[in-house]
């Protein structure tokens, strides 16, 4: 069996808390909508409705079993990669190479599922990285070569490779702590998304000083620091329950998730701004595309996984 110890009841408790927060958010938005109906409040309401769907799908994916969880995470990476490829300029001659890039997704997630750390780390950054340019060279068209190989490799890294770290967390086994790999995954994903909402809310309430006016004018120092502090506190409280981390280390992990999540968010904003699009797609009402939703996770997942691997799974801190 994949999870001999079964799903930890701690994961179910944490999901219960998330649903309680969701109900609270729905009530607050419903009251806001009744007091002052506007385009902004109905947008907020669409967002909360989408949160219900996303959290429910994610819940089903992580409580069923590890295979379902990994397939779900792979599907998320596929949708993100497809959205990326559909937005960027591509060359007709590269169609088959793009198909091979898609086929690398199941391979990468199988390596993650089998917890093959070495293959997981080298498959995309080494092997696919070397494969794309030679395949394009043999196809024979040099016009636009650098752009094609650069954008395909970067897209594969930022979507598939980065997001596949979520699936690696599930394979941490007995080092994963009291709530298992699913607990670590829930800790990472819930805090990343919570941090997005916290930074958004602090920014809306107190935002003044812009951090990156040319890239993402809505991001302010007040929002960033308020979100960072809130996420660190929530992480310190949730960490000992869901992860092997003690309270201070869990708080630090939360701060790390907040900072890296912010970096992911603004990086995808820069990418979209370069292409002249506001949203990466229309998959999730009120949110945009899948890249708009997982942008923070693109940075937070590798940073959190590798920090856990180096410091915690190795026993350097406990």
């Amino acid at each position, binding site marked *: 069996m994949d999870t001999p110890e079964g799903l930890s009841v701690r994961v179910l408790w944490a999901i219960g808390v998330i649903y309680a927060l969701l109900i609270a958010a729905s009530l607050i938005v419903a009251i806001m909508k009744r007091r002052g109906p506007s385009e902004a409040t109905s947008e907020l309401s669409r967002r909360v409705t989408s949160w219900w769907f996303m959290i429910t799908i994610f819940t089903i994916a992580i409580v069923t079993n590890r295979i379902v969880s990994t397939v779900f995470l792979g599907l998320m990476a*596929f*949708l993100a990669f497809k959205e990326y*490829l*559909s*937005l960027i*300029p*591509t060359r*007709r001659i590269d169609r088959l190479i*793009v198909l091979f890039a898609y086929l690398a997704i199941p391979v990468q997630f199988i390596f993650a599922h089998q917890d093959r750390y070495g293959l997981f780390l080298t498959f995309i950054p080494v092997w696919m990285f070397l494969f794309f340019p030679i395949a394009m060279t043999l196809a024979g068209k040099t016009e636009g070569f650098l752009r094609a190989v650069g954008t395909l490799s970067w897209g594969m890294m930022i979507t598939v490779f980065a997001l596949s770290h979520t699936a690696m967390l599930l394979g941490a086994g007995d080092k994963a702590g009291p709530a298992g790999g699913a607990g670590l995954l829930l800790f990472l994903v819930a805090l990343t998304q919570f941090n997005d909402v916290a930074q958004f809310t602090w920014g809306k309430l107190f935002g003044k000083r812009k951090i990156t006016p040319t890239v993402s004018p809505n991001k302010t120092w007040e929002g960033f620091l308020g979100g960072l502090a809130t996420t660190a506190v929530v992480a310190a409280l949730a960490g000992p329950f869901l992860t092997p981390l003690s309270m201070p280390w869990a708080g630090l992990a939360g701060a790390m998730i907040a900072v890296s999540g912010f970096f992911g968010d603004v990086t995808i904003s820069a990418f979209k701004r370069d292409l002249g699009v506001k949203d990466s*797609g229309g998959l999730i009402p009120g949110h945009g595309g899948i890249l708009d939703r997982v942008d923070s996770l693109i940075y937070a997942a590798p940073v959190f996984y590798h920090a856990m691997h180096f410091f915690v799974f190795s026993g350097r801190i406990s």
Partner: protein
Amino acid sequence: MSRYLRIAFFAIIVRPILLIVLGMNVRGREHLPKTGPAIIVANHNSHLDTLTLLALFPLRDLPRLRPVAAADYFLSNKLLAWFALNIIGILPLERGGVKKNPLADLEAALDRGEILILFPEGSRGEPEQRADFKRGVAFLARARPQTPVHPVFIHGLGKALPKGSAILVPFNCDVIAGAPFQWQGKAPEFMEALETQMTMLAGQGQFQPWD
């Protein structure tokens, strides 16, 4: 029987593929016709164009939706003809002036309250490049001047399955529907209005080159 096969084909095969393997971003869905008769006019890049347009409507509307397709291509062999006529539900169009009024079947379909799907480029052509619209659509609009004409711009399916390829590569597609308009009295003006509409719809997206 084929009616149920058609619904099953769309519910079990076409829609899941469009949802997961392809993925659609639809804009202006409210402009699509809710009842027939109506004429949908779209640009053409891929066999997937027809399936995508059919999938935009609820399954119960399927019997009324009739993609107009070239008889010489789709009726060329028995198996393809059966599939095209019964599952896709095409209305075959004779190309090259064989009949006295080549549009007679189309006019009859409109009189039955059906929704015609037309690709006036005539062929899928070079993927993701628009070709000039042929004027047959103007003659049809003239014959049934009360029928609303709905312009729809499609982008991305030519990348997923271009003419000449049998391998589907996943790409998201964009479908942008515009407000309907009617026959105004002159064919050149009608064609010009149609071209302007399509260019305007295409301009609503930020589409990168595919070369």
